[in-house]
């Protein structure tokens, strides 16, 4: 070892002693500052010490980065909140024109509420989607509370990844052919867990039809009716033309609510209230 490096080492140790003499109460800011200085000075003055502490520094840095990234990414995305769009006190998309002209969807769509309601809530939904099943009781409660003031339009958006979504939509349409679309809609969501796991859901759907007092034979035949399947496809096409990418997707008076996210019942109520208030009209 050359004399100069020996002298450096002695100076480094003297510095360490001075630092430890000033050590503050554990937990205090000064304590952590001194600790950091101790570690860094040891690392710079003593290669073996550097090797000893370096892994802890690396682990600490990785932990800090992961925690910060998770915390930042987990924050609710407020891209459409009033703070960032002060002129628009709403969670609705900022009405950017759709890329193509929306198609009409199935004629005479199934709707609950007032024909001439001030607010139209258009829902794109998949009977097999658990998130749609989760939101449905909230939508029903909204429909009950707002009554004639809100028109709730149901649009079929069966996703190909759900193997029974299309046949379930056909079941709802077949019940609709006998005037009981909404009753079947409610039963399908209420019993989603049962028929999703069934080897053949048609029998279960027929049992729901019987429970609703429908003509079961006609219901079974209507499950294969092409014009009813075409209604579902027309709704789906409308969703695609409106840039719907998942379910449930809610439009309030033609504008998508919280695009890309799952709105809660409260979010929907807030938007309906805003649309019903004089300023929102």
């Amino acid at each position, binding site marked *: 070892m050359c004399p100069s490096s020996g002298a450096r080492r002695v100076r480094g140790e003297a510095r360490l002693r001075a630092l430890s003499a000033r050590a503050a109460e554990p937990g205090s800011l000064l304590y952590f500052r001194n600790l950091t200085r101790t570690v860094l000075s040891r690392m710079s003055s003593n290669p073996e010490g550097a090797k*000893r502490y370096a*892994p802890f520094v690396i*682990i600490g840095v990785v932990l800090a980065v992961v925690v910060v990234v*998770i915390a930042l990414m987990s924050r*609710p995305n407020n891209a459409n909140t009033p703070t960032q769009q002060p002129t628009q006190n709403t969670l609705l998309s900022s009405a950017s024109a759709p890329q193509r002209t929306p198609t009409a969807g199935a004629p005479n769509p199934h709707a609950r509420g007032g024909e001439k309601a001030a607010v139209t809530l258009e829902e794109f939904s998949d009977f097999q*989607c658990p998130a749609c099943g989760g939101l449905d009781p909230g939508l029903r409660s909204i429909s009950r509370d707002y009554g004639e003031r809100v028109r709730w339009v149901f649009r079929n958006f069966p*996703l190909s*990844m759900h193997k029974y979504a299309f046949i379930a939509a056909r079941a709802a349409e077949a019940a609709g052919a006998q005037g009981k679309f909404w009753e079947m809609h409610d039963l399908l969501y209420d019993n989603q867990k049962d028929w999703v796991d069934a080897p053949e859901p048609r029998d279960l759907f027929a049992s729901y039809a019987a429970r609703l007092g429908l003509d079961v034979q006609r219901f079974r035949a209507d499950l294969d009716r092409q014009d009813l399947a075409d209604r579902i496809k027309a709704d789906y096409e409308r969703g695609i033309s409106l840039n719907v990418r*998942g379910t449930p997707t809610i439009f309030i008076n033609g504008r998508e609510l919280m695009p890309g996210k*799952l709105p809660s019942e409260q979010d929907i109520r807030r938007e309906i209230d805003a649309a019903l208030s004089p300023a929102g009209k």
Partner: protein
Amino acid sequence: MSTEAFEKSGARPRGLWWDAATALVALVGLTDAAYLTVEHMTGRSVRCMIVSGCDEVLQSSYATLAAGIPVAAVGALAYFAVFSLATLAAFGYGGARRLLAPLVAVMFLATLWFFYLQAFRIHAFCAYCLLSAAVTTTLTLLVFARRLTDSEKRLS
């Protein structure tokens, strides 16, 4: 980890590259699991999407443990543990290396279970979960191949 386990023997600890590779692969797993944890917590994957991704898997009841803890978060912790142990081992803490093998073995068993769940229970595969399975398999190969080469060296 006590500093007594620190190997003072040589300038370069044995099998540095094995440990460094293990730490790097674990970092990939940690990033993946952290992303899945965020997806789970923000509920972005709770909707059903046209392009089937991880929503089917993350929505399933298997994605959450009893206390509401996301499985992905446990995975992130496990990858972080592997990363930490491998980093310590790379810097000469021999004790850390001994803990790696049992931890990775448990993770590999968990991976097999998750693969079974995706294939036979949920009937959907999530690309990020498959990446995690690939990472854990690589970790298992790294850790056990390294043990094999070590024991061969000892024998010779």
